[in-house]
């Protein structure tokens, strides 16, 4: 019992904690060095940094595709760095990810791609049907439910990927350049979706290069520079606010 207690955080308000986290690939130089961070439930952040700064790498640590070389990651009070392999699926189901390269399954329709997180969690098929259809309509793809990813444009694929990331109402949403391939109108609509999810209680972290987006929505920033992470206040903007 001692052990399981020590892996549960006593601070319930912290959804995400990094404790002295470093990462290097295959014994190479550090991509991330000594990151410390604690985010309360319901936070919304942009993750910024130059190309190659390590944004995707940091997100990988958070969606458990990568273990830190040093330090520990806590999600919703559980030390995921120390967690057993069998404990990971349950944690991953609480995290929705929009991958930078989408990672849609090519042989599945848009509908089935979006349905995947629900199927994996054994949700009943009628519930899957209504949730997925509703969400695909919301991202403007109701005409494309049966389309295979290869027949979709980059922006359409991105919207499928976003729908898949949020369909099971995850507690943490990680989006890697989610507006990279869409025009401003759709980008606004997608931001609105993330903000809705955030209102419902999800933590959201959006990695982006898009200064314009960061300026328009005044959210706190996490900035990666020289392998280190700093929390910055909202970018002073032209009055626009969420």
């Amino acid at each position, binding site marked *: 019992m001692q052990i399981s207690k020590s892996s549960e955080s006593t601070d319930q308000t912290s959804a995400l904690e990094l404790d002295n986290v470093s990462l290097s690939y295959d014994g190479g130089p550090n991509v991330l060095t000594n990151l410390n961070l604690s985010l309360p439930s319901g936070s919304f952040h942009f993750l910024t940094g130059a190309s190659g700064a390590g944004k995707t790498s940091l997100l990988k640590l958070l969606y458990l595709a990568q273990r830190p070389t040093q330090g520990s990651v806590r999600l919703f009070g559980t030390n995921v760095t120390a967690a057993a392999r069998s404990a990971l699926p349950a944690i991953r*189901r609480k995290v929705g990810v929009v991958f930078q390269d989408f990672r849609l399954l090519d042989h599945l329709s848009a509908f089935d791609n979006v349905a995947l997180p629900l199927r994996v969690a054994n949700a009943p098929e009628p519930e899957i049907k209504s949730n997925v259809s509703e969400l695909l309509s919301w991202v403007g793809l109701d005409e494309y439910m049966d389309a295979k990813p290869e027949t979709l444009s980059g922006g359409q694929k991105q919207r499928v990927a976003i729908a898949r990331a949020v369909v099971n109402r995850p507690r943490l949403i990680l989006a890697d350049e989610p507006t990279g391939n869409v025009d401003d109108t759709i980008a606004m609509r997608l931001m609105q979706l993330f903000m809705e999810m955030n209102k419902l209680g999800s933590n959201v972290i959006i990695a982006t290069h898009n200064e314009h987006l960061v300026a328009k929505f005044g959210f706190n920033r996490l900035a990666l520079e020289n392998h280190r992470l700093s929390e910055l206040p909202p970018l002073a903007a032209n009055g626009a606010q969420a």
Partner: protein
Amino acid sequence: MISLRTDLPLGGDSASRFIPWLMAIMVFLGILSVSGVAVFDTILSGWSRAVTGTLTVQIPALSAINEDSANQARTDRAVAALESLPSVRSVKVLKNTEIEALLAPWLGDAAAIGDLPIPVLIDVSLSDESTAIIEGLRTAVTTVVPDAIIDDHRRWFEHLIDLTEGFRLLTIGIALIVTTALALTVVYATRASMAEFREVISVLHLIGARDIYVATQFAKRTLSAALKGSAGGLLAGVFTQIAIGLLASNVESGFLPDIDLGFGFWISLPLVSLAAAVLAMITAYITVLSTLRSMV
């Protein structure tokens, strides 16, 4: 019902190319060995029905010439002794013509047989065949005719049973080899497919799939590929079976007993095919689970 829908692509990988053919061949071989045993059993039980409850008493002829009355007396004594036994149902002395008919294929011209010291053969049918009864009969007959030979078919029959057992062991051996080959090939094909579907497996894991979910996907897929193949193997097996049956019925009757393999045999064929497909499915499931667990 269980849906065979999976999150994996429908074809194009090692497992979906390999497994149907593999299954077809294995099921075909399986059916041939099962029917081999069934045919052999049927023939054997036909023979054993013909010889059980009977034995033959041989009274050797004393000499070729002019001993007819002595021979007759010996025969009569033996028949009387046999008839006095309670477990003897009937006693029949084979006529010379019948014996000549039995010997004709070996000795040829029947005219010559009259000059040979041909033994007298007595067919005895028994109501009880236990060793004690047969030993009692042997004592009773040899008391009155010391050089009488009692042939209870047992020796011949025991050889036949040895042969059947050998044949059975051989079939079990073949079945084991076929099953092992099936399982090993499924393991190999499943591993190859897992490598080909690395990206799909990775995405499934990242969105929260458990190893069991991934393994189930592969198992369903393997089952549907295996069912396709084993249906083919079943058809080919049954077709071959019927063809052999037709060929056998063309063989002069009497040489082979009529072979009716029965309902149980025919119903066992689809069951064997189904069992092979299920075996492939379980093998794929276990392979995926153990491969995933060995990954970090």
